[in-house]
């Protein structure tokens, strides 16, 4: 069952007064529930822009995006936060944890934003922290955790709740290769176990090892779409 679809998605940015820079030139793709897709491409190929559009952070210049059965209306930007809350979990290259909140609170706060409050949010936060094997670090501030532990909290934050789509931007870029491999394996196992679609934007060839499919993007277009080796 498809949970994320893009049809002929284009995105243009305006530089200066007149110059229009096309970043995406008609990208179409689809992700199934439980599917793990690696999105690869050189710098400036449009990976992050595509991730932003699929994650309902940006709207496309043209084309259609359907998230968990709901079509994005570019004329209603106010619709996007609600879709992000309901359907999407993000993992960032820089972790983007709140430095003043403990590991548990970082996860719980994301649940609060998504509408889950009180004891239910606390229980769910504890559940996902346990899933990423960080229960014993739940009261630590991010500054007291290693890079791998921070990324695992970020994964827990993305998993918290029922969002069917997980989007990760270079999740291993700030980790050494050993820790990176561990984090990827954990990510894969949890996405599969919880039947979430996972799209990972990466330069890291190790990501292929956990992906079901690899998309290659070049100059704003899908250059290759095939099964991972």
């Amino acid at each position: 069952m498809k949970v994320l679809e893009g049809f002929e998605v284009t995105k243009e940015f305006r530089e200066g007064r007149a110059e229009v820079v096309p970043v995406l030139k008609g990208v179409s793709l689809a992700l199934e529930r439980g599917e793990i897709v690696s999105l690869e491409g050189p710098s400036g190929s449009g990976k992050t822009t595509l991730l932003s559009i699929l994650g309902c952070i940006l709207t496309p210049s043209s084309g259609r995006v359907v998230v968990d059965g709901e079509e994005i209306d570019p004329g209603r930007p106010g619709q996007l936060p609600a879709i992000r809350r309901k359907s999407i979990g993000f993992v960032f290259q820089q972790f983007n944890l709140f430095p003043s909140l403990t590991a548990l609170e970082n996860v719980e706060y994301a649940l609060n934003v998504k509408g889950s409050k009180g004891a239910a949010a606390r229980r769910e936060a504890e559940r996902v922290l346990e899933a990423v094997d960080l229960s014993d670090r739940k009261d630590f501030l991010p500054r007291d955790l290693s890079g791998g532990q921070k990324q695992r909290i970020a994964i827990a934050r993305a998993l918290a709740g029922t969002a069917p789509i997980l989007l990760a931007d270079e999740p291993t870029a700030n980790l050494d290769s050993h820790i990176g491999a561990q984090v990827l394996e954990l990510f894969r196992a949890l996405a599969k176990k919880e039947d979430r679609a996972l799209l990972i934007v990466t330069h890291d060839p190790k990501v292929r090892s956990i992906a079901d499919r690899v998309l290659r993007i070049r100059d704003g277009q899908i250059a290759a779409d095939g099964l991972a080796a």
Partner: protein
Amino acid sequence: MVDLATKSLLHDRLRFVITVSGVAFAVTLVFVQVGLFLGLLDNASVTIDHISADLWVTSRNTPNVDFAHTFPETSVQRVRSVPGVARADNLIVWFMTVNLPSGAQEGTLVYALDDFRRWNIPWNVESGDLDDLKRGQYFFLDGSAVKRYGPFAPGEYREILGQRMKIIGRTKDARSFTTTPISFMDFDRAQKLSSQQLTNRTTYILVKLAPGADVAAARAEIARRLPYNDVYTRKEWATRSRNYWVQSTGIGLNMYITVFLGCLVGIVVVAQTLYTSTMEHLKEFGTVKAIGGGNLDIYRILGKQAAIAAVAGFLLGALMSFAMRPVIAKIDLKLIITPQFAAIVFVGSILMCLGAAMISFRKVASIDPALVFRG
């Protein structure tokens, strides 16, 4: 519910201290300046507020209680016969010169009545019997005179307008706006001391109305019978006396300028620290947006942080202001902080901080959540 606003605010303790200090500075400045202003104004009408008269009859256009002009003392007879008037007495308020033992000359503001007890003045007698004032060349002197006259004690003599007068009592809290010490003596004695100006003259008529009397009707009738005088209620007369000093001197303007500057400093400090903090936390706010939060969620965070800074700054500022009261009292000044005044400053602090946070609101509204993908 995780309180990101409070935790984030307290996470950077130095910035929090600077923000709270800025608010506390503004609050202290407002409390002290306005408190001193209210204290001075209180002096301008303290005798009016304590004298138990319902109406005051003054000479035409008398600007305030200290600057009295004379009119015939027999006018009081016409007031006493007005329906609804229970009692009316003449009151002299007159500036007289005092020769001090040092050879220096000072001034005193004399309050002279036939029967002080009936009119609740002086209201705070530390020593002496007011009934003795009629028995000779006697007067009561307020303790605040020590600063101008030097130490004195009942039983000592001072020369008033060249006449040797004995101090037979001491009062407390009777001050004038100009800080001229207030003394109390018998009505006839005051007329004799300054016979050229005061013989058969008075400066005010104090009027006590009968219970249930129609104030407006009595006032109108007195005004009709004394067409060359003014008639005020106690409240009106106190306001007129206070307004004279506010309008004719620079203290009102000075207070407004200081309050404005205090608020400006507070707004600048809070706005600057909140804005810097917002700029440093842009990525965090971007993350809030990326995980589904809207501008409103971030406004709430900033608003709560501003409110916390306001409350903490207000409490610190109020504490400092109250701690200054005994110090200020030592230099014979009053710092008046009423609950209503404190409530206004509290609300003002909150509004000031929320106003300062608005500058950050504009920045937050323009945050692109896509910045979370930038390294």
